[in-house]
């Protein structure tokens, strides 16, 4: 089980490295299994091992099976760390108009929110905000970037950094 988790983490790190042109404020840090251990209740653990984000298909806010696994881990982690609150940010790619994308981002954030609440996370610990297409993480103009930008990111507050 631990081995499988490492496999997932390494893949995430590679994907992020490949697309991080000049982005300095990556929320996910590459995880080195040989480095000194990080606390399971830390921000770093949540962002890298649990996974802080889920991705969506074009114009969709449906939670697919992969996203569902990530959100299940998020719910477990949030339930194990009751002192932490979270803001779920909904985002869209640049292939849409501003206002529609704000609404679409709200749909995506809400889909993740509803999933977490359905898995026992108290609604009072969660809020949602949509950024539409205004805060892309990957800046190229093709599907390799757009697919990363169609996302709902769970930003936790109140957890130690590492």
């Amino acid at each position: 089980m631990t081995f499988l988790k490492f496999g997932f983490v390494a893949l995430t790190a590679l994907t992020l490295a490949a697309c991080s042109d000049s982005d300095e404020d990556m929320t996910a840090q590459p995880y080195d299994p040989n480095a000194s251990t990080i606390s399971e209740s830390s921000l770093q653990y949540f962002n890298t091992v649990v996974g802080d984000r889920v991705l969506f298909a074009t114009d969709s806010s449906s939670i697919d099976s992969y996203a569902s696994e990530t959100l299940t881990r998020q719910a477990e982690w949030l339930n194990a760390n009751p002192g932490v609150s979270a803001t779920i940010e909904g985002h869209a790619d640049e292939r849409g108009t501003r206002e529609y994308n704000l609404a679409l981002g709200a749909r995506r954030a809400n889909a993740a929110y509803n999933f977490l609440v359905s898995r026992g996370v108290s609604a009072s610990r969660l809020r949602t905000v949509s950024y539409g297409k205004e805060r892309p993480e990957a800046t190229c103009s093709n599907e390799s970037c757009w697919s990363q930008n169609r996302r709902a990111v769970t930003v936790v507050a109140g957890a130690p950094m590492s």
Partner: protein
Amino acid sequence: MARNFVVAWLLAAVTGAGVLAPVSGAMAQDAPPLVIEIDEGVIEPMPFAAPVFIAEDAGAAEFAAQLTDVMTNDLTGTALFRLIDRNAYISSPSSFEATPQFADWRAINSQALVTGAVSTSGNQITLRFRLWDVYAGQPVGQGLQLVGDRDNWRRLAHKVADQVYTRITGEDPYFDSRVVFVAESGPKNARVKRLAIMDQDGANLRYLTDGSSMVLTPRFNPTSQEVIYMSYQTGEPRVFLMNVDTLQREELERQPGMTFAPRFSPDGSSVVMSLSRGGNTDIYSVPLGSRQLIQLTNSPAIDTAPSYSPDGSQIVFESDRGGKQQLYVMSAGGGGARRISFGDGAYATPVWSPRGDMIAFTKQQGGRFYIGVMRPDGSDEKLLTASFLDEGPTWSPNGRVLMFFRESPGPNGAPALRSVDVTGRNERRVPLNMPASDPAWSPLLQ
């Protein structure tokens, strides 16, 4: 901000003055009347001459050439007029009162002639101008005298250009107007977005917010110097009002949820906008008096981008209730909506023309974005522009020109303001040296 303007008709000295009288008699057979019909057939701009306005005192000298340039730039920017090079002029008016030597202007094929004189007194500038039909040898309309503050000298020039444009095309004026927009800076993944305002021709840029909170989608109140916009000031998208002169701002109302896509009603007494709760977005109206939300749509779809008809009786909006984003029209009080867009692709950001005859929109199809227009019943769809990303049309106050923004692709992509005639001609970049988006045209200044 003082906007003291006095407009007075010059009653004396202009003989035979009339309102764009059709040229009659034998002269009319020799030369076409001084009229531009703006339709899809016009290709050749009308050649006109505009000698530098006469400076009637020492203080006027610094303004005369600039006033003339601003006026001629407005006119030539429409591509309906072509300024004849001043090196070709045979004679120059010796005084504002003198009747032009029409033969000299006919010889260089100038159809229209604009003459003017500038004088100053204290903080005030006085600009007098006349428009002449060169071939008829007659004035077009009465001479006009405009008085304004030095600080607002450009408005005098815009007023003259508006008069010339209106007298020759028969269309309503639009040069003396402003545009509120979102000024953008910084990298694509960390853009700073500030509210800004400029004259319609890109001059007099002024920032209205400091960039500490992201702002989007400003719109002018049709009846005042007030704008409505969306800001992340409170941490989530919310609708705010701002007076562009005093910069005072306030949140429109405080009901929970994300509020966005605000626009004023034509009489300025009410706002229509989207409210998103639980991931679902519907359209609401908010009277500025009561500030109570009135729900106008109730569907599980994304209903947004509402825009009133100019008579205030109807609202056009976009919705994905049928799958893709399409345009719908409903009564201003809500209720049943009728779909009006039926082409391939997705339709968004509908904006009702101030003339009432057209609805402009953004269309997304086959990986491209277009600015287009259609009749309010959905007929006569016509696409005017196309690119990787064209978005967000806004109408000039006379409903003849659309401004929009175009974003270029890639990590270094940036938005720029552009304009295009409703005929599809004369697409051009707005002369503004900064990335900018979400333009919204003001009503004509008073």
